[in-house]
């Protein structure tokens, strides 16, 4: 059975077209896809890494937001969660890992230590990871509860959607 072709009727067919077809830019579509599957690098530093593990584990289940796939290689990851204090010895390594990640990439500073130094204010630690890598979302807490980290993830999602996937 073939549909009968009728002549174009703008009053009727324009509305039908709007209802059935979504128009967007490629950029926005890509951003929409990106925000739903952010892959974090599996990069644990200190105490916060344990809470990061809990976030990915059964009770909190980060998989609901498409981010359960922690990649061992930074080259396969889009997101670095700096989970813990960054020492002067670790700083060059951290920057190296960040440089190895492919664009576009994002950084969550998880916890007080990576956000600003936290309770430690001394010779050994970098006072805030934003001195070495650009940070997109800061999550407060020492350590932040898994709920807080998930809130950080949701904020990052919003940001990726709003900026069209670019930084």
């Amino acid at each position, binding site marked *: 059975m073939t549909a009968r072709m009728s002549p174009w009727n703008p009053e009727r067919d324009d509305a039908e077209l709007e209802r059935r077809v979504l128009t967007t830019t490629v950029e926005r579509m890509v951003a929409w896809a990106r925000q739903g599957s952010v892959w974090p690098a599996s990069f644990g530093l200190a105490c916060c890494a344990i809470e990061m593990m809990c976030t990915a584990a059964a009770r909190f289940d980060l998989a609901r937001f498409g981010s359960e796939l922690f990649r061992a290689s930074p080259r396969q990851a889009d997101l670095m969660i700096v989970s813990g204090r960054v020492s*002067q*010895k670790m700083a060059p390594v951290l920057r190296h890992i960040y440089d190895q990640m492919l664009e576009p990439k994002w950084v969550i500073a998880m916890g007080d230590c990576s956000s600003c130094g936290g309770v430690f*204010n*001394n*010779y*050994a630690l970098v*006072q805030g990871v934003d001195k070495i890598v650009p940070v997109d979302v800061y999550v407060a807490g020492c350590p932040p509860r898994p709920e807080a980290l998930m809130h950080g993830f949701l904020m990052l999602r919003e940001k990726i959607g709003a900026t069209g996937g670019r930084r």
Partner: protein
Amino acid sequence: MSGAGACVALLRERLRDLDLDVTEFRGEVTVIVPAAQAFEALRALRDAPGWTPVLTDLTAIDRFPAEPRFEVVYLLTGYSPPVRLRVKARLPGEVAVMASVTGLWPGANWLEREVYDMFGIRFEGHPGLTRILMPDDWEGHPLRKDFPLTEEPVQFSGHTPKVPSTIIPKSPPRR
């Protein structure tokens, strides 16, 4: 061996010319030996019959500006029967060199490296005395009292920035 007192008695017996200074505080026995004879004393303790002491901890104290400036602290533990003994040796600030005990306890390797890293005390006879915790190109020894804590003032809105460690100042000793 029964208790730390027996260890001290043994040291007195083995090394007759040793100048021992024994103190006890809260049930813990500390023996201060001259730095030059510390290795001998530790060897005598390790080889003493009746216990096999383990080097539980090796660390140092900076008493700056007092002299002799450094104290190297060895904490020995016998597992059965349970005995603890602390042995200390005092070192001057200018030539802070000790004999390494890695030959007696291989576990002293990293502990001595840590003391070197943090205090700048050198251990003679150590198989590879390099920095362990700090980066290799680090300057200074962080746990020395004349090494600053290197704090950044913390800004709170509406207040002048504060250096955290000065909020409660150090009080003079009491009692």
